[in-house]
């Protein structure tokens, strides 16, 4: 029986072989029609794209003609296979506009010597003084290499550089990550070290020294502005980051970071000043420039900050995928030895729609306490403190951001996106920082800003 059956089967096979009909093409066509795919993976589609480039144009504009920033940036990644990746960042920023110099508003017009020490500018009565000589172009370049070290380890190292006319930055970073628990847990450690050089126009102001008259360019060419020290100084920053990422179930990821930052050196803002006020009225002390000179019409002192700052922070972020809609909620707490404690709450929700688009609402709230040496102004009778700054960024401050991003993925896999955000910053000077009759009469340099960004991500 079995022999007969085999013979029949073999005969059938031979019959078919004799026909020598190739069924490959018909089979391939039938398969494609079944699966609804193009007949084969074309060589073109297989062509290796070398670079993945994320480029963006960003506009940031503050209200009342303050700072405007136009920035063009590009982040390029090249994949060399085996998870070896090179990342390159390039950005150019152009900053224009005016920025608060730290002085308080006054009933009369106020004249200031500009940061160069060679000119003056005047603020109308009742307005927060803004230094409108603010203008800068910043150029930044960074490179980063990452690769696996052993089976579960990845190592990365990078170098960064940026330059402005009065500020140079060079930094290096090194990081190591290790996966555990079938790659459901990742621990990472990173170390970054930066050295910055600050070279303000006109030289470094002496701490808490009084703003002098402007140096007359015409007859004092070689003369430096008064109350200035060295031409430049440096600042070193060491950052340590320990990270923990855990996959929590099928749709959720938790990330927790601990950060430590130690900055030392010149941490003062050389362009920020404080108003010196009467201890009773809280009003600016008037001043008259020397005969024949132009200069400040009030008493102002350059600010002074400690030469070290140690910050610790913890950041926790949870991401959850609600069947395609991804919610991201993050919270950061940071504290430092300047007594600036801050809380940040941030959330994004990514909503895909129409197959190739997404909308992403974004909200962020930030709140901080004032630095121990923050002052709204200085009383002229009190002994000078060792450190003082009227920079609103060191005040009791809160900021809120709301925004929306729209992204579209093209048929070729490229993505373009647009983001519009509104930012509001509100600072406060609690009574402990106020002098004489200032309480109830303060005016903080609050502002709104709008952020508009266009991005395009493509392969090259």
């Amino acid at each position, binding site marked *: *029986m*079995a*022999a007969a*059956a*085999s*013979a*029949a*089967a*073999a005969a*059938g*096979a*031979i*019959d*078919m*072989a004799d026909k*020598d009909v*190739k*069924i*490959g093409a*018909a*089979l*391939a066509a*039938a*398969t*494609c*029609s*079944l*699966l609804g*795919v193009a*007949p*084969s*993976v074309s060589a073109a589609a*297989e062509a*290796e794209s070398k670079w993945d480039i994320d480029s963006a144009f960003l506009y940031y504009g503050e209200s009342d003609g303050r700072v405007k920033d136009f920035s063009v940036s590009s982040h390029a990644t090249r*994949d*060399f*296979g*085996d*998870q*070896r990746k090179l990342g390159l960042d390039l950005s150019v920023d152009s900053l224009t506009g005016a920025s608060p110099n730290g002085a308080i508003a006054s009933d009369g017009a106020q004249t200031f010597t500009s940061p160069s020490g060679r000119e003056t500018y005047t603020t109308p009565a009742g307005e927060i003084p803004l230094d409108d000589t603010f203008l800068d172009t910043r150029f930044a370049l960074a490179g980063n290499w990452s690769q696996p070290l052993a089976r579960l380890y990845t190592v990365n190292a990078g170098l960064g550089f940026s330059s402005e006319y009065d500020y140079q930055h060079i930094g290096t970073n090194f990081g190591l990550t290790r996966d555990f628990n079938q790659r459901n847990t990742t621990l990472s450690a990173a170390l970054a070290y930066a050295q910055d050089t600050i070279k303000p126009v006109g030289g470094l102001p002496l701490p808490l020294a009084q703003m002098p008259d402007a140096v007359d360019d015409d007859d004092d060419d070689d003369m430096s502005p008064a109350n200035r020290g060295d031409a430049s100084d440096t600042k070193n920053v060491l950052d340590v980051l320990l990270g923990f*990422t855990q*996959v929590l179930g*099928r*749709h959720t*990821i938790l990330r927790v970071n601990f950060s430590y930052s130690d900055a030392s050196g010149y941490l003062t803002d050389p362009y920020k000043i404080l108003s010196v006020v009467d201890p009773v009225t809280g009003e600016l002390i008037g001043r008259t420039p020397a005969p024949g000179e132009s200069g400040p019409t009030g008493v102002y002192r350059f600010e002074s900050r400690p030469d070290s700052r140690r910050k610790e922070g913890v950041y926790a972020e949870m*991401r959850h*995928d609600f069947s395609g809609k*991804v919610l991201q909620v993050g919270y950061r707490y940071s504290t430092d030895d300047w007594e600036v404690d801050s809380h940040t709450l941030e959330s994004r929700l990514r909503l895909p729609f129409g197959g190739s688009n997404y909308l992403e609402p974004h909200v962020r709230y930030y709140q901080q306490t004032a630095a121990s040496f923050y002052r709204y102004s200085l009383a002229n009778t009190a002994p000078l403190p060792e450190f003082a700054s009227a920079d609103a960024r060191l005040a009791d401050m809160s900021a809120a951001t709301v925004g929306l991003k729209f992204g579209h993925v093209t048929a070729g*896999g490229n993505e373009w996106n647009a983001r519009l955000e509104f930012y509001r910053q509100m600072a406060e000077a609690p009574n402990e920082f106020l002098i004489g009759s200032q309480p109830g009469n303060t005016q903080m340099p609050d502002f709104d800003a709008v952020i508009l960004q266009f991005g395009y991500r493509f392969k090259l």
Partner: protein
Amino acid sequence: MGGPCEVLAEIADEVTARKVVEAVAACAWRIELKFSRYRPDNIVARINASAGAPVEVDEETANLLDFAALIHRLSDGMFDITSGVLRRAWTFDGNDRIPTSAEIDALLPLVGWSKVQWASPVLTLRPGMQIDFGGIGKEYAVDQSIKLAALASDAAVLVNFGGDLAITRARDGNRPWRVGIEGIDASDPRASTLVDLAAGALATSGDTYRYVESERGRLSHILDPRNGRPVSGAPRSVTVAAPTCTNAGMLTTLAMLRGSEAETFLESEGVRHWVQRILPVARA
């Protein structure tokens, strides 16, 4: 899917990786639930319980039936999704029970695609006939899954359902995926063959675990539906590389059905293939 299912992917971030794996898992489960002949509540169960009544099927099932009909024609009736009832006589679990000729012949009236009426979307079987997508389902699931994986991410992804596998693209750096074809002697890892795959799919058909022992040796589980008997001289294992897993799977099945002519068939089709045999081809 009658075997371990795995997804390999070159993805750094976990969100994307999850997305890919979940898309594949959802697809595999969907197809398993819809087309498995072991489920009491799906379209296959409804067709097999129809007892001669016409059954209207959904579009996806209709596409699979069209495909099965076409392969039946291309293979001169050797590939037949109605051949499953022959398993009532043949139990390929390694035993030595060989059915009698009468047992087999009694089943043959219930076997043969030419005996069904298929006018898409209505299928009418003769009473007692059954269909089984076992010969297509797994490869089809691999292809549908890899499509979803490619939609979810542009990363390099490999989907492997019990040895039938497909990739979205070459690995990062344009390196091929290296896939091992298990040797027919599974206890000897050196016997496995390494295959570089830069695009497309691989499918394997074999009798490593499914056979009947007879005095003539091991009989393959590949049955010729035209006579209800095992194909003679079938290789122990056939692996084919093709643009899609369904395509590759059909070629391995058709090669197996050619028995001792498997290699000849694959050569003439001009596809990359790997055929494993233990004994010299026994000619009838």
